[in-house]
């Protein structure tokens, strides 16, 4: 059973990462990653929806005939998004205003219906919940990485506006790394999101490539060298 969880975690966070590998949910991903705070807010919202919809889809999977499963999944996902939206509107108003249109757009994030169809509709509810959590986490990590990249290059800060998400105490979280008269506009504007995303994917592929090369080389290396200092 633990290997199942390991596989799920590995898939969600790395091998089959919804943003870097499946390239799903790019619309909100590219649009809200101007700052770490926005990225984290949308990431958490997406994760909540993913876990909720995965559990529900898994629980009802035996009662839903195959022909109408897609509309049922859509109803389930849309309901969870609306619930999250109303809750954010009520309790994290500032962030709700900042994320604006992108919360309802979680409905159109194909990563969510993709997981419902590919995993939750075939597996029990706790595995599905874990799958949703890991996929959501993988998505959030990419969002935050891209948000940090763009915020540092574009504004020279990190965690600006964190109080919108976490409450007043978080105002002190803001780190001013450096300031400049001419911010790197490209990083903040949409092209910066595409470029940043491209670099992240390239980085992942490069790491994968090195891993693979090392695996392929490993037996030969062992034979040639007396001592191997492992990198990793």
């Amino acid at each position, binding site marked *: 059973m633990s290997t199942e969880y390991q596989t799920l975690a590995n898939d969600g966070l790395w091998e089959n990462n919804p943003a870097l590998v499946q390239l799903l949910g790019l619309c909100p991903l590219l649009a809200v990653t101007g700052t770490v705070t926005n990225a984290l807010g949308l990431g958490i919202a997406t994760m909540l929806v993913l876990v909720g919809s995965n559990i529900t889809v898994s629980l009802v999977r035996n009662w839903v005939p195959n022909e109408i499963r897609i509309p049922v999944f859509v109803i389930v996902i849309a309901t969870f998004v609306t*619930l999250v939206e109303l809750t954010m*509107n009520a309790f994290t108003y500032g962030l709700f205003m900042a994320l604006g249109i992108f919360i309802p757009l979680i409905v159109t994030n194909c990563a969510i219906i993709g997981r419902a169809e590919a995993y939750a509709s075939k597996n029990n509810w706790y595995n599905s919940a874990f799958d949703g959590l890991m996929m959501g986490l993988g998505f959030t990590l990419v969002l935050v990485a891209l948000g940090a990249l763009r915020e540092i290059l*574009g504004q020279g800060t990190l965690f600006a506006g964190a109080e919108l998400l976490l409450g007043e105490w978080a105002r002190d979280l803001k780190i001013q790394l450096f300031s400049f008269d001419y911010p790197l506009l490209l990083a903040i504007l949409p092209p910066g999101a595409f470029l940043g995303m491209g670099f992240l994917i390239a980085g992942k592929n490069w790491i994968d490539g090195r891993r693979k090369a090392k695996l392929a080389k490993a037996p030969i290396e062992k034979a040639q060298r007396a001592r191997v200092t492992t990198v990793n």
Partner: protein
Amino acid sequence: MLKSMRKNGLILGGFAVVATALVVTTQVLTADRIAEQQRNELMRTLNELIPPALHDNDLYRDCALIQAPEALGLAEQPVYRSRLASEPNALAIRTTAPDGYSGAIHLLVAVNLQGQIKGVRVLQHRETPGLGDKIEVQRDDWILSFNGERVRTENDARWRVRRDGGMFDQFTGATITPRAVIAAVQRTAWYAQNNMDSLFAAPANCIGEPLANDPLGREEQPYEY
């Protein structure tokens, strides 16, 4: 065939009913809290411009919708009246600069009885991040340079950016945005000075409406000149 259609229809209908019930319940449970959040946001902005010490009335309740599209940019704009012991002392007027670099800029302008600017805040805009967004008080002190200023004549030449011979700074790389904001504040202040009595006398008819536009980003159409 017919039987399976009926069965599927019933299942779908069942899901729709449960989903709707969940959404309605949540909406009912959060409605008060959401309204309160919007009211707090409105009061926070109003109190920033007109400190609580200067008024003893509920600013957000003493609100009138004013139709002055030439001065305020939209067909109708709310005006909040500040009074101390029933004596009027200041106004907070929502106004719109239709000619920002990327569309309309919505502002809140507070003026006292003499027409002196008490403060200006940007409510909503779509200016270029990193350049035009310096009009936000969180990003730059520029918007505070209006404080204490007064429009002396209808075409007061001091109310321009420095590049045009006026008294306000422009931003490096962005002149259109400050130009639009300065012109809108000037129009609004001039209008307020000349209509002070009727603005205070107008009946309160827009109690507690949210100050910013629809959070979903559907833009209001700026008034066509």
